[in-house]
């Protein structure tokens, strides 16, 4: 028993080190992308769109490597269910719940191109500001402006990724959904492809310190669901977006096995 406890303690200790190394690697990587890659791509790309696509592809490959590193050092194990739903041409509008700090990283590691709607605060974060600018990500706080930008990108055949909760989920639950994703789907006339993210044991969650790693390696599953259609049925925009947002949230509640509420 003593030996088992010792083994588990050593294992957890190594995963704390691995998690710390992952955070450090992320910080360095983000700075390199923002301070080196972005200026180089800006100089060598003949248009803003080309620069953004190249930067997004670079972020994708970087995150693939980063996710691989986290798996290699034993911090996480990741499984993608129904990858074929992502691979059918351009996925279009993707919506996901947001239980952990690395959801965005894991999703983008599977998407060679993604326009991501992110919190405005990232533009003033010294580590990621260069990345969000270089990739042409969209701030989530300009209301109609954000919706119009997303619609424009979807119509150009690009993939747009949104987290309707707008921030990380409450522990073990699902936050309130903002209506931006529904507005985008209705305005663009597109379905939304939901990706349900589950993690067990809990880790990297809201309000949780980075070193508060679980007793064993965290299993993270990304499940790509069937497309959720948007249809206003002629209702006013306010009603239609509320009904569609409720549909989105119910999908995730059901997928996560959560009681209504």
């Amino acid at each position, binding site marked *: 028993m003593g030996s088992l406890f010792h083994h588990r303690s050593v294992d957890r200790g190594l995963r704390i080190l691995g998690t710390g190394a992952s955070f450090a690697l992320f910080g360095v990587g983000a700075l390199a992308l923002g301070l080196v890659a972005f200026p180089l791509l800006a100089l060598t790309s003949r248009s803003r769109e080309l620069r953004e696509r190249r930067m997004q592809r670079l972020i994708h490959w970087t995150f693939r490597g980063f996710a691989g590193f986290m798996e290699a050092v034993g911090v996480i194990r990741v499984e993608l269910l129904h990858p074929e739903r992502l691979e059918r041409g351009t996925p279009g509008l993707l919506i996901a719940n947001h239980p952990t700090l690395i959801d965005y990283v894991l999703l983008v590691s599977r998407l060679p191109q993604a326009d991501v709607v992110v919190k405005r605060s990232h533009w003033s974060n010294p580590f990621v500001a260069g990345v969000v600018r270089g990739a042409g990500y969209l701030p989530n706080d300009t209301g109609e402006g954000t919706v119009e930008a997303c619609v424009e990108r979807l119509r150009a055949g690009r993939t747009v990724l949104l987290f309707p909760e707008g921030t990380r989920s409450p522990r073990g639950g699902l936050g309130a959904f903002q209506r931006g994703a529904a507005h985008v789907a209705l305005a663009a006339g597109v379905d939304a492809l939901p990706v349900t993210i589950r993690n067990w044991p809990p880790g990297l969650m809201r309000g949780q310190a980075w070193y508060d790693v679980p007793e064993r390696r965290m299993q993270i599953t990304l499940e790509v669901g069937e497309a959720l259609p948007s249809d206003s049925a002629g209702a006013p925009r306010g*009603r239609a977006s*509320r*009904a569609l947002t409720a549909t989105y949230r119910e999908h995730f509640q059901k997928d996560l096995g959560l009681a209504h509420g």
Partner: protein
Amino acid sequence: MVDHASMTPDEIFAMLKRIMVREFDLEEAQILLSSGFEELDLDSIDAVDLAVSVEEEIDFQFETDDLAELRTMQDVVDLIAGVRDRTSD
């Protein structure tokens, strides 16, 4: 089109409630003069839709900066009734 200057504050508020029930699926009883936009779960896009609907019903025009300054239903009534100072351009 109704002249907003001829409307009483009660009439303005009744119009706003009617629009909000129709557009946002709210219950009329939820909407009080003291109700804040956040409390009613109205976002910036809803504010634009409310303004557009009001302009379609009465001869009142919202100015660009008006919406950003409005926080409660009382603010909207006061603005339309002409008792609230507008943000200068």
